[in-house]
């Protein structure tokens, strides 16, 4: 079927051959033509040699999730040729490097195979093994430009921008583009029936990954101390923070740094550093992933009880244990919500895309300081490491961080006596002081039993008094966290409820189900504790499909615990194979659950 701006391209390459920049060039050039795109990188936990794929969904409708199909496969990796060919949707195309013979036994009648002698052409035109390998990638972008009708001038502009500092590379890259472009034009009917055409669908948008967005958000939030231990898939968050800081965080008078990034010896130390810094008044954070949360748990309980702000980004990956470090999941919801021994519960934020990573990074510091407690931002590998098209970030010119209830030297001077854990305002949030401010502000920060006055205690009533007051604070948190996103019509008795990166697939599924006369309302949870409208939303429906990316229905469990929702209403749709969620999964499973319901 011929389509315009509705095509899925998948590129199969070998890890470490430099295909990432070629794939990014391809995606960006389509984006710059005004066409919405979705990019997904499926990569191994490996430095070099294992198979890797990049998938670009061109979606004129502006959907945010990956598609279940592949229209054009660029099979550059002999190792995965058989499965790559098998994955092409009927009627699709397969492009391969015809320098070498391919296995004709694997032919499919319903797929058009296009051979391009990429290696041969690049070997003839470029010198040196490294250049030949890199240019082969650029050459397939050229071929795809001809086959899909991508604007060459846009590609040229992007190459010129990428190599502004290395002019000599512009010529060779353009030469490689032309090699592929001309070969395709001379040998195939270009463009293919599935092609792209310039439109006006990307205005005011950028293409960015969630970790970069979160790192930028941390800088804008005024974070000055970042401590971390490298772990996939969170590493690029600190890389981004460092890169922005190196540009914007140099004191103009002294040329010295106004930020401190510490690579810790492990995650135990990383969170300890964050707590020390926030205790001392700096906005501080740590990015990590599931295994890091496990290690940080003891300190998270400490911070909950001693009431110290902390911002933790958990870019979730596949568990349990080491699991699959380069695949995505939402399986740390419960371990974060109740991290650490004893009665603890933590504020969680759930960004759905890089835009929310930026805005929630800003919000997380205000919440952590406002509530004097750790705030965990639960992103995932799909959001954190993939490029997403999102509206460009906006901040208010008058943005001032909310440091919460911190007493100044003057306020302390005027006070009779300061007590650290006294609920003066009735909202469960006490006042705090920063070391070095005033002798009257001193108190002892401890994880051992303490009274409302901050003194050590083993007295039952005094201990319980503080523990109960923390519940008052928890209810205050419920009113302060970001509200859920809700689409509601009173005519619909069923709904989809999801979290984080499930958003795009669920929205697309809702559109498709509506076309099949299955209208559904929608709720996307954005924070824990759950704000009141979530409970009300669930109460108003007969059935709520809870779509999440883990095996054990962790979000559903949390809804039952925190909202006391009726469990029989909450029907789980669970996707946990490590690939990002897509709309097909949601549509098929909603229909299946409905048919079960009707049969009964």
């Amino acid at each position, binding site marked *: 079927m011929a389509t315009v701006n509705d095509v899925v391209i998948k590129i199969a390459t070998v890890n470490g051959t430099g295909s990432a920049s070629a794939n990014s060039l391809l995606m960006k050039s389509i*984006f*710059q033509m005004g066409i919405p795109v979705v990019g997904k990188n499926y990569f191994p936990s490996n430095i070099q040699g294992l198979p890797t794929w990049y998938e670009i969904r061109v979606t004129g409708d502006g959907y945010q999730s990956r598609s279940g199909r592949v229209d054009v496969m660029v099979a550059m990796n002999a190792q995965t040729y058989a499965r790559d060919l098998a994955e092409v949707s009927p009627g699709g195309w397969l492009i391969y490097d015809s320098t070498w013979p391919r296995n004709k036994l694997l032919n499919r009648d319903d797929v058009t195979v296009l051979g391009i002698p990429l290696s041969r052409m690049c070997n003839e035109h470029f010198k040196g093994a490294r250049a030949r390998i890199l240019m082969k990638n650029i050459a397939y972008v050229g071929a795809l430009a001809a086959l899909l009708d991508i604007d060459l001038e846009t590609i040229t502009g992007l190459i010129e921008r990428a190599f502004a500092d290395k002019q000599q590379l512009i010529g060779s890259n353009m030469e490689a583009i032309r090699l592929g472009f001309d070969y395709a034009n001379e040998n195939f009917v270009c463009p293919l029936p599935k092609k792209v055409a310039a439109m006006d669908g990307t205005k005011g948008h*950028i*293409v*960015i990954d969630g970790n970069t967005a979160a790192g*930028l958000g941390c*800088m*804008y939030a*005024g974070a*000055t*101390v970042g*401590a971390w231990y490298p772990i996939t898939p969170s590493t690029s968050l600190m890389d981004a923070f460092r890169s*922005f800081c190196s540009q*914007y965080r140099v*004191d103009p008078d*002294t040329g*010295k*740094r*106004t*930020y*401190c990034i*510490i690579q810790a*010896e*492990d995650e*135990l*130390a*990383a969170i*300890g*550093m964050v*707590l*020390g*810094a*926030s*205790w*001392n*008044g*700096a906005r501080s954070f740590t990015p990590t992933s599931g295994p890091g949360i496990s290690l940080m748990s*003891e*300190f998270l309980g*400490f911070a909950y009880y001693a009431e110290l702000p902390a911002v933790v980004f958990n870019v979730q990956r596949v568990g349990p244990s080491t699991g699959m470090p380069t695949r995505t999941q939402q399986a740390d919801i419960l371990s974060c919500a109740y991290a650490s021994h004893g009665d603890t519960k933590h504020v969680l934020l759930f960004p759905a895309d890089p835009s929310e990573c930026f805005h929630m990074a800003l919000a997380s510091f205000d919440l952590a300081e406002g509530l004097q407690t750790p705030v965990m931002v639960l992103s995932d590998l799909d959001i954190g490491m993939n490029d997403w098209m999102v509206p460009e*970030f906006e*901040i*208010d010119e008058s*943005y001032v*961080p909310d440091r919460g209830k911190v007493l100044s030297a003057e306020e302390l001077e005027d006070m009779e006596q300061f007590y650290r854990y006294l609920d003066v305002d009735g909202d469960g949030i006490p006042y705090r*002081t*920063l*070391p*070095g401010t*005033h*002798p009257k*502000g*001193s*108190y*002892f*920060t*401890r*994880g051992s039993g303490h*009274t409302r006055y901050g003194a*050590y205690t083993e007295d039952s009533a005094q201990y319980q008094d503080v523990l109960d007051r923390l519940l008052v604070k928890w209810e205050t948190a419920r009113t302060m966290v970001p509200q859920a996103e809700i689409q509601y019509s009173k005519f619909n008795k069923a709904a989809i409820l999801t979290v984080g990166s499930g958003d795009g697939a669920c929205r697309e599924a809702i559109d498709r189900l509506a076309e099949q006369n299955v209208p559904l309302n929608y709720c996307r949870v954005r924070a824990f504790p759950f704000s009141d409208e979530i409970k009300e939303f669930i109460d108003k429906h007969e059935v709520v499909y809870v779509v999440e990316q883990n095996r054990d229905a962790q979000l559903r469990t949390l809804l039952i615990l925190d909202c006391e929702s009726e469990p029989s209403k909450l029907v789980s749709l669970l996707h946990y194979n490590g690939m990002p969620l897509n709309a097909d999964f949601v549509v098929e499973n909603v229909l299946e659950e409905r048919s079960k319901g009707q049969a009964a």
Partner: protein
Amino acid sequence: MSYIAKPEVAHPNMPRNKLGLTARDYEGTVSTLCAGCGHDSVTTAIIQAVFQLNIEPHMLAKMSGIGCSSKTPAYFVSQSHGFNAVHGRMPSVTTGANAANRTLTYIGVSGDGDSLSIGAGQFVHAIRRNLNMCYIIENNGVYGLTKGQFSASADIGSKPKKGLPNQQEPIDPVSTALSLGATYIARSFSGDKEQLIPLIQGALLHDGFALVDVISPCVTFNDHEGSTKSYAHTRQFYHHVVDADYVPPAEEIKAAYNDGSAMPIELHDGSKIVLRKVDKNYDPTSRAVSFKFLRDHFNAGEITTGLLYIDESRKEMHGLMGNIDTPLSEYPLDKLHPGRKELKKILNRYR
């Protein structure tokens, strides 16, 4: 009990420091440790050291982990902020605290369990960063709060009250710190205040990681015959290598020292530590000399004490990173936040 305040009575003629405070002003709550615990003597030495250095109480941060030693920050300088972290994690909290505000004076009190077992990793890495702090280990070779298990610093042959002697090699914090490149390394004995107070003062003023390993016998579980960390054993094998005197910046060094053995070392604030070398061949600025000396005396069963190594040339953590002198926690926000227009420019890279 530690939550009972001491009566505020001070003799009108008590000496006052330059801030007009008496030593009583540097005290904390009443200790809950066992009567005769070495740790209480260390607490007293800390109070004297801080009092004499004229440190403003609210500019001192008291850091600790878990254990008998880690309880002691409650027993000195009540008007300072204290942070009693989780077990073995005091170094990371102090690292973060120092990152946020480098103008406070950091004193960490830890023990052999807290620093050499559960917290060994953090102890090591704080040294590696040359974190600017005074790190005191109250070392008694035993776990007190859990009733008498050996710690990692128990010597081979050391006998517990019950059970078999220790057979495992001890971890010596001093030689560990020396091999890791700590820039101020001292050892003393809780019962020797004359030596301990100036060593703590030097450690507080040293611009980098300063370790003071204090043999501090546990009267309840490790002060019997056969224990190598008992009062009797320590007194018998105690060997002064160097004694240190602290001389404030304004004061002249008087010639009370024997020429061949006096060695003044200038600290960053202009004050001096004057070392009186008992052993003239000892050079506390050479890691190689220090290491050999330590091992030889260890093999002879002696506990070498004094300022065993010092390097005033190496930069501390902030200096190594090129960070601003102002505390990051006090840096004005409008300078941390590039503004809306710059955001637009940054985002243009992602089109």
